[in-house]
């Protein structure tokens, strides 16, 4: 059974005057431990799709299943990291990361231990008592990732989490995320419009079309080299990149 199953999702926005079709017949499955990336042009419905999977928005039709159970509301089984920062500014880094466990009434001791583990994992051990406002953008996003992971979600949903970061910090964060995902054996659905990022992180890449968003193709990423910044110029890497770009370009013509 797939960990996450998305079947025939349609989303039509209605603003009272006209209808905008944002998603058209989107279906895919993700196995446990897989890292799947969605790429697509801006406005093609990526955020909308992730919000539907996360239960923050409802589909016009179609279903989302986690471990075979249909889900319609948000819940901790689908942890989310958002496109823009969403930390709670009134809580310290540690308290932010403990938040989900507190909501589930997990005992204080255990909460602290788990929170510290994930804060360490994203390399912020020294900052557990810092307030979010005193952190840089990259650090905030790392806290957001730790906060979501500490709540042990079944599936991790990430919406362009590194979109606002500079190129260098971005690469550091990508390597960090790949590491963390591997050590925690997380199942991840990750959104980006950066093709390099998609190939570096994904075991499969879902390529979406312009609005209305449809799935153009699902491309497996098999690289014989290790995935780090030096892979960016490797032939295998570039071949996959070319394939994705061809798909997207055909779309714009």
């Amino acid at each position: 059974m797939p960990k996450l199953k998305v079947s025939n999702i349609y989303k039509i926005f209605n603003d009272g005057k006209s209808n905008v079709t944002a998603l058209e017949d989107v279906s895919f499955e993700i196995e446990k431990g897989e890292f799947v990336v969605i790429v697509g042009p801006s406005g093609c419905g990526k955020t909308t799709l992730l919000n539907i999977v996360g239960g923050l928005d409802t589909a016009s039709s179609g279903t989302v299943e986690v471990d075979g159970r249909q889900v319609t509301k948000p819940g901790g089984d689908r942890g989310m990291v958002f496109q823009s920062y969403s930390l709670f500014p009134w809580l310290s880094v540690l308290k932010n990361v403990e938040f989900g466990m507190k909501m589930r009434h997990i005992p204080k001791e255990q909460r602290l231990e788990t929170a510290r583990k994930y804060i360490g994992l994203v390399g912020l051990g020294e900052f557990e008592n810092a307030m979010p406002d005193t952190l840089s953008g990259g650090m905030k996003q790392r806290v957001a990732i730790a906060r979501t992971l500490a709540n042990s979600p079944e599936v991790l949903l990430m919406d362009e989490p590194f979109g606002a970061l500079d190129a260098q910090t971005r690469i550091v964060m990508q390597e960090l995320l790949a590491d963390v995902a591997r050590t925690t054996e997380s199942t991840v659905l990750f959104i980006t419009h950066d093709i390099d990022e998609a190939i570096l992180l994904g075991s499969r890449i879902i390529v979406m079309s312009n609005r209305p968003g449809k799935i153009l193709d699902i491309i497996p990423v098999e690289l014989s080299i290790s995935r780090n910044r030096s892979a960016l110029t490797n032939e295998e890497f570039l071949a996959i990149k070319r394939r994705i770009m061809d798909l997207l370009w055909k779309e714009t013509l």
Partner: protein
Amino acid sequence: MNIEKNKKDYRLLSFIVFAILIAAWCIASYSGMVSKIFLPSPSDVLDAIVSGLKDGSLWENCWVSTKRVMIGWFWSAAVALPLGMLMALSKKFTAIIRPFIEFARYLPVVALVPLTLLYLGIDEAQKYTVIWLGTFFQLILMVCDTVSSVERNQVNAARTLDANKWQVYLYVILPASLPGLLDDFRLTIGWAWTYLVVAEMVAASSGLGYIILKSQRFLATDVIFMGLILIGLIGLLTDFLLRLLSGVLVPWYKRLGD
């Protein structure tokens, strides 16, 4: 002097403004430029304060007025807080209550005073009611706006972290809107003093508003000034205490320019 960084300089500047005001007052009154009936001298006002302190009437009047403001405002906040939050979170409730609130908000409170006298007489409840009417209809809309402006992202994050509806209210919406709510409170307490004086001027036998009105009949301008200065000082003190409270409750909150 670097006001941006230095707290001492900030205080100094505030102090200088007061010093200039007082100096101007001294010059205008002691030189005889302005008649005593219109502008008492600082020493006249000090005399009034000292005699008020001696016979205990000063504390008595300050306390009576402060108590009225606190109780009237407290009831206003106690009702406006839950209803304002409900308005921000439920369209249905907004549809029920908003038209009435907007209607009532534009009624001048002074025009309602005769009715309060008719219904409630001249006892304390009438004072509380005037203050309540003056602040409630504004405060409920302020609370609604403050709560509505909580970032959607934060609420969504909490919901995907297993928070149920009540936990979202308690652990996200409330702390996120607390700085704004404290500001709303500070503003409306100021207005509560305005309506207190309105209430005390029409029907009262104690309080700062009452002694101001009474003094006008006897042309006791020094006592009027004393009343005004006391109201100002109590206002300053209240503001100071609420800022202190902000610092304790929401130390994480930074304003533009802090």
